């Protein structure tokens, strides 16, 4: 049994873009945001200029429920750099609104992970002043 934790850092602050600034502002306030198309109501992530379902440029920011399921996951035992402590568990979360978020699952044993597991998003401030969304099993 090996427990998964949030990374203690250091984690380099993400280089944000014009499209993504509202997303990271939301994270800093403990709010998971995505874009919603006003023309066809399709949810969009990563932050974009146009809707991936209909091409309209009528995207508005919305708050997510922060609940979803594990769509896929991996458990990393060889870290990308020595800054990351293993194991960690990158996962794709399908949020209840129907969009996909890449994050890590934390606060559980590695053996507890499975595709379809219910999760909720929680936020962790890293040592470097970045607030990241992580997933926890519900």
């Amino acid at each position, binding site marked *: 049994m090996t427990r998964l934790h949030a990374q203690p850092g250091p984690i380099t602050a993400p*280089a944000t873009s014009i499209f993504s600034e509202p997303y990271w502002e939301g994270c800093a306030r403990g709010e998971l945001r995505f874009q919603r198309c006003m023309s066809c109501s399709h949810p969009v992530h990563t932050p974009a200029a146009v809707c991936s379902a209909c091409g309209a440029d009528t995207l508005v920011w919305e708050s997510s429920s922060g609940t979803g399921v594990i769509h*896929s996951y991996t458990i990393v035992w060889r870290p990308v750099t020595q800054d990351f402590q293993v194991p960690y568990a990158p996962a794709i979360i399908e949020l209840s609104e129907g969009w996909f978020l*890449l994050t*890590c699952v934390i606060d559980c044993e590695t053996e507890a992970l499975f595709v379809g597991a219910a999760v909720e998003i929680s936020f962790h401030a890293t040592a470097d002043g970045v607030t990241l969304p992580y997933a926890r099993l519900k």
Partner: protein
Amino acid sequence: MQQHPLHDVVITGVHNTRQAKVLEGHDSRSISLEAAHGAVADAGLNPIDIDGVVGPFGNDFIYQHRIGPVWRSLSPLGIPAVLEAAMAIACGLATTVLIATGEAGSHRQRSSTAPWTRPTNEFVAPFGMFTAAEFALMARRHMHLYGTTPESMAHVAAVIRNNGHVHPDAVFRDRGPFTVADVLESRMVADPFHLLDCAMTSEGGTAMVLTSADRASGSAKPVHVLGGGTDHFGPAYQNPPVWETGGRRRPDLIAGTVGRRASELAFSAAGISVEDVDVCEFYDPFSFEIIRQFEAFGFCGVGEGGDFVLSGAIEPGGRFPITTDGGTMSFSHGGAAVQLLQRVIRGVQQLRGTCSSMQVAGAEIAMCTGGGSGAMFTDVIVLGTGEP
């Protein structure tokens, strides 16, 4: 019917420099130029015969040999470079094109994963992502949907590594033979990928010369470009690698089967189907990607790739032998792109009948690929010993 324009193009020169974990005394420029000279010589030509270049040091080749003014492409390497060179020749922008690349000295600090595997994007870097983890997310989804097993992936890795084990020029020659158990017992990198399910890192140079069929009439054994295609689903390592990511153009095509459209284009141009393929020089960044490609290209149904690779088809002597030089797992993985061209070079060697190991007897059609689902792109080229 009018002849397909690509069918006028042949590959007449190929060369791999020595491949090694570290090539002492070389940098990327020196090993690329060595590769270039090797391919030009293999084509029976002199540098002055080259009037088109592709690759990061192509401009150097132009200047050092004073062959300018000539056509130059900034195409990414691998199959897109071969197709662009072929198109340049077919369209009359050049008559004889050199593609050359190589890397040495760029990644010798091994406590981190290789620099070309590490994304910097805001949505993936904070979560410790790298290439193996991206591809593992695709493989895990496939395991969930279709029951694909780590054993089937390990079998792929063992076959490819054993091909390299007997290849005299492979970086990992004589490192085997490997069994499925050896792969499964190697340390875990990114579940379900063990160390031996993954590509290695090394250094090396590689190069190729293409020209028109009429100019190559004196050449020993020109290999014909029969068809090709490239499929992309958007930027890799920025967006979640969701298996089901689709497109608005054709809903039946998803990121999990990326390469299907490219293979349809390639087969159509070549006038062949999967049954006509004699050797599968598939790109092997991770063992699972071989399983996925057989499904994407229609060698078997989606979800059947695990059983397909366990059926005896992919071994030496099988119906569809794979990655016969040992690929990126055993032959070489020379950098960000060097190894992508080497899949095409191996296809040429197979069709020339000159492989020093794992020669597929009587091979007439080779299918070569690049990319992978975790990177959301796959490229395909089909080569033949003659015109269709």
